């Protein structure tokens, strides 16, 4: 691959997207805590959601776990744990396929539900649609990676994509590694970069609100009254909520 294009795609784009991701989250949290929500639609429909949402989310948790191990752990680490390359491969493909299937089925159900159920579709923003498109692309190319790279062909991403990915963090990028990767891996990397750039501006921010602290905190919280009585703090989030009560 042309080196200039390689640098743009595998160095500049990832860094720019990462910067948007980080700064975007800071900005969103700073100025839009009120908009920071899962924006659940369960009140409209829960029969499809009951299957689709857990399938997608639990599948996604497994997928994220797989990515953390696959991208961040060098071969030497798993080898030190006594896991052979073959063993790792079988595990990765097995678990990866199962999780990928759950995510694909779950996401399909969720997208169908979003389109078919009137009230759910009505509450879907333009940003939601963009996010769903991005998510679907990333999931499809990712599943294709498992199939194309591990079952049909053989591409050892742990010697390629993973090394490139870790290099980004050490400011030691190796675009040539990505240039040598199969097309589905390249597509997956690019689409996920874009998704990461979209992330802070979508409902995906709720990922960073995983309420793990709930397991340890006291049941009932007490807080003191907001002390700035009578003082206006500027417009609050809910003052801008578009009025849906007008006659359609």
């Amino acid at each position, binding site marked *: 691959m042309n080196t200039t294009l390689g640098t743009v795609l595998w160095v500049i784009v990832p860094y720019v997207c990462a910067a948007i991701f980080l700064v975007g989250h800071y900005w969103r949290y700073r100025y839009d805590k009120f*908009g920071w929500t899962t924006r659940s639609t369960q009140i409209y429909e829960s029969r499809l959601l009951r299957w689709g949402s857990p399938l997608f989310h639990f599948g996604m948790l497994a997928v994220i776990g797989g990515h953390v191990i696959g991208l961040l752990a060098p071969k030497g680490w798993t080898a030190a744990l006594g896991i052979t390359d073959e063993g790792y491969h079988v595990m990765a493909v097995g678990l990866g396929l199962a999780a990928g299937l759950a995510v694909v089925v779950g996401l399909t159900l969720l997208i169908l539900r979003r389109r078919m159920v009137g009230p759910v579709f009505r509450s879907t923003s333009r*940003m939601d649609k963009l996010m769903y498109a991005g998510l679907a692309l990333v999931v499809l190319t990712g599943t294709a990676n498992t199939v194309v790279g591990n079952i049909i062909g053989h591409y050892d991403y742990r010697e390629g994509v993973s090394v490139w990915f870790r290099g980004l963090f050490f400011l030691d990028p190796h675009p040539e590694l990505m240039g040598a990767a199969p097309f589905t891996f390249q597509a997956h990397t690019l689409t996920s970069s874009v998704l990461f750039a979209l992330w802070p501006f979508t409902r995906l921010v709720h990922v960073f609100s995983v*309420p793990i602290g709930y*397991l340890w905190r006291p049941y*009932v*919280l007490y807080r003191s*009254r907001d002390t700035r009585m009578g003082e206006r703090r500027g417009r609050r989030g809910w003052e801008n909520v578009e009025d849906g009560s007008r006659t359609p």
Partner: protein
Amino acid sequence: MRVMAQMAMVMNLDKCIGCHTCSVTCKQTWTNRAGMEYVWFNNVETRPGQGYPRTYEDQERWKGGWTRKSNGRLALRSGSRLKNLATIFASPTLPGIDDYYEPWTYDYRTLTDAPLQEHTPVARPKSLISGRDMAIRWSANWDDNLAGAPELANDDPVLRKVSDKVKLEFEQSFMFYLPRICEHCLNPSCAAACPAGAIYKRNEDGIVLVDQDRCRGWRKCVTACPYKKIYFNHRTGKAEKCTFCYPRIEVGMPTVCAETCVGRLRYLGLVFYDMDAVLPAASVEDEHELLDAQRHLILDPEDPEVIRSAEKEGIPHDWIEAARRSPVHSLINEYRVALPLHPEYRTMPMVWYIPPLSPVVDAVSETGEDAENRNNLFAAIESLRIPVEYLAELFTAGDTGPVNDSLQRLAAMRSYMRDINLGRETDEEIPRSVGMDGESIHRMYRLLALAKYEDRYVIPPAHAEQAHSLEAYAAGCSLDTEGGPGMGGPGAGGSSRGGPVTGGKVSLPTPRVRRPEDGE
């Protein structure tokens, strides 16, 4: 002993005529917004009836409130913390919009824009959920005044507990209204279920609020509240609830529902409670003892030791004075006529009710007997088993004793005061038979029958100087006012249809007080 102040309410059901003024004024004040069309922070239910949302009292189905485990600790009926997190992606028992009702508007424009035609144009109902034409099949108040009762009232979870054979007789003879707001519980299960920790109880006045900036829309509170008084705003994706009109309470004004109540049946005042005693009281084994446990939890504001502890906790002097004059305290613990709604949910609700005597009076009048004669009334309370049992299922976990006591005191007040009104010799045996004396009957009469504004609402204003003792202070900037240089810019563009703009800094004070024993 750690004394805390709680702003609480009592409603005198005898006086409720079911006019829904409280609901309407509350709606105009708080929930006339997008996403809240189906929400009534205050609603008035006809009893017997299914309530709003439908059959919400059936906790086998809706999983609200607490249960007592065999080891004596409390657990959320909706499940442990782990289960709550594991089911976070799709809530297993969340009421859908149909369990409330599908809100609608009318296509009013056709009334003016329709072309000339033979028939008058019609404004069709349009769903505010789907935007389409809809058939109206239910609303917040569909079974008002027992409408459709022969079919609908049978699904009243409270009526089901009262034995089957008396149902029909009961429906013919008995009906009353039950206005409901958030109970601002001492042991709120909604707050306990909130994964994000967005729901909190205020130290100063016990009002339970949802921090809109912290809520992430996990919806666990909706399931956990046994009164179903937390609502999901389907436009903003956040939970909302009755605020006890805290901006009004803070400046010494009554809540909107109380202020506009034409029957003047609501009472507002402070009660002191011992924070350390809340969990033990909520955990007593016998459900019939929950009422007494809850009464004991409320401290006597005349007790010097209570006053000393209150002062030690930093409760201002005028608040202590207000607690001593509190109509709520006297109705609960002095006259003992007010009862909590569903104490068996173990949330220690702080909106109390004086059970209605008037159905009993009506029943006596219909027989042609003197309905204000003490003996007739007392006998009727005893013999009208069904209404009393029904009231007991609402207010005392099925124990008819306290309901009888309360009704008899109300009956005694009627008989005793009638003698005075007719210029007859008073019968001191009447107050004695219900454990009162003439003077306390007089005072109760003044509070319940005359119900002067200043007696009904004893609300000490909030104290700004308390502010300086709070570490949460100083999170904001003085330039951070509307239009000021520190004002925040617009929020993330278009990520949510609801327009997610928030201006200015938002301080998130950290929880200050922790309870010593937090049961799992």
